């Protein structure tokens, strides 16, 4: 397993090395040591590899990720997995604000808490937060699912489009045009799939979750376009 120690290798060299990997290459499991809060660690990967980062990272870790699985054994700063396209990012600790921002696909799993604006403008990414999320989470969320096992802060889902929000704990307040919606069987199935993907299958009761989504009064929703989300 290749190991890159950021105490001796520059961040630019790490990212360039990961970018050079072929899609079907042989080196599929990488370890990164001593991130020491640096920004943009393991961004822009475009290969189905596993990258394990041993320690806390700074801004934008695993941003624009495509196909790779990036595991952070620590906390992540603002904008982790921002604009992720596919693959998976798993943070074992807490994440700062704007986790999964604008993500278009893939799965972000946070074992701890996420700060403000988690899933802001998400466009297809699925996010599972095992702790709580801060204020203005899922702001202008367009598509994808945000699952929060704990509580949500103020103004959840403000100006939301068609993302699905599931919260197991309390919601401090809902944002503009975000409303409580009934949890139907296909939502339960979706939630069960996401909880399994997040590694907590069977550990939480699906029936304690409440679903939130758009009241569709703020933006111009037309049923003919539902397939776009």
């Amino acid at each position: 397993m290749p190991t890159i120690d950021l105490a001796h290798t520059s961040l630019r060299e790490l990212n360039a090395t990961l970018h050079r990997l072929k899609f079907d290459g042989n080196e599929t499991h990488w370890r990164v040591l001593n991130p020491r809060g640096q920004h943009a660690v393991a961004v822009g990967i475009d290969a189905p590899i596993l990258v394990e980062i041993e320690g806390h990272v700074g801004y934008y870790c695993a941003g624009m990720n495509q196909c790779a699985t990036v595991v952070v054994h620590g906390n992540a700063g603002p904008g982790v997995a921002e604009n992720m396209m596919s693959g998976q990012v798993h943070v074992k600790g807490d994440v700062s604000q704007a986790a999964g921002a604008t993500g278009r696909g893939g799965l972000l799993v946070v074992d701890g808490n996420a700060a403000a604006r988690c899933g802001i403008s998400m466009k297809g990414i699925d996010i599972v937060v095992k702790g709580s999320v801060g204020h203005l989470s899922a702001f202008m969320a367009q598509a994808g699912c945000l699952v929060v096992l704990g509580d949500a802060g103020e103004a959840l889902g403000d100006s939301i489009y068609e993302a699905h929000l599931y919260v197991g704990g309390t919601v401090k307040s809902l944002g503009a045009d975000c409303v409580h919606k009934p949890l139907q069987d296909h939502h339960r199935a979706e939630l069960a799939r996401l909880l399994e993907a997040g590694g907590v299958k069977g550990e939480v009761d699906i029936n304690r979750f409440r679903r939130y989504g758009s009241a569709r009064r703020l933006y111009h929703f037309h049923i003919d376009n539902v397939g776009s989300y």
Partner: protein
Amino acid sequence: MCLRIDRRVKRCEAGDGKADTGASCMCGIVGLFLKDPRLEPELGMLVAGMLGTLCDRGPDSAGFAVYGRETPGAIKLTLRAPLGHDFDCLTEQLETAAGASLPRVVRDTHMVVTVPLAREAAIRATLVEVAPEVSVVGAGRRMEIFKEVGRPDLVASRFGLPDMTGTHAIGHTRMATESAVTTNGAHPFTTGPDQCLVHNGSLSNHNAVRRELARHGLAFQTENDSEVAAGYLTLKMREGLSLDRALQASLATLDGFYTFVVGTESGFGVLRDPIACKPAVMAETEKWVAFGTEYRALVDLPGIDAARVWEPEPATVYFRERQ
């Protein structure tokens, strides 16, 4: 270590970029509170390292407040003078006013002079009379404040921060966005005896608040928004609020985005605006509690790998003080 920055690219100018009215947009803040007295000889070195890491968040100026030993019955005045000022001559004049010899330490453009409490007013009056170009940047039983224009790592070494000892310290690296790069615009700003404030953010209503504070008799040296925040806390505490309550009250009055860290004789406090615009990280071990704008600032603290690391909640006042 300090990253070189191309300011034409990195500097975030507000509006039309005129350097005249206020705040600090990016900036870095650090705070370190030692629980283990055995670390006190290393306080300055640890804080210098933290400030150095945040050079790239604020390469324009830097400042810090260090809480060291007190002398019973005396107060320390930190004086700042223009480069090359004759501190020997000034000290003689102050000693004449005090009628006693005054212990002093000169560090670059600053001098910390320890004066008997009973003579403080007389010495301040003498200072105004004989050296109007010298300003008192801080006063307190334990607090010393140093701030200058320049790269933070260089500012820290000019003042000999790595050799300073104490129980706690706060510091600031400034990336000026709205008001000019001057020493007066550098943080910390004092808010009273043994108290000071550092700020990361930008207040949008500072002109209106400054006018209101001026009506209450407060004087301001700069057009800087952070000085207004310091003045607001000063006024509220003068009116009888505790620092904690004054910070809470500021949430309703100060509009904009900010993270404040305030130093007090016994510790430091942290407040983020309700929107939590500016980044903030705290960490704690059995030996210390630290604040940093980014986690990077904390990575060289002893035992950081085992520290509890968390993000302070918005609109919540955190205090860490010696009992």
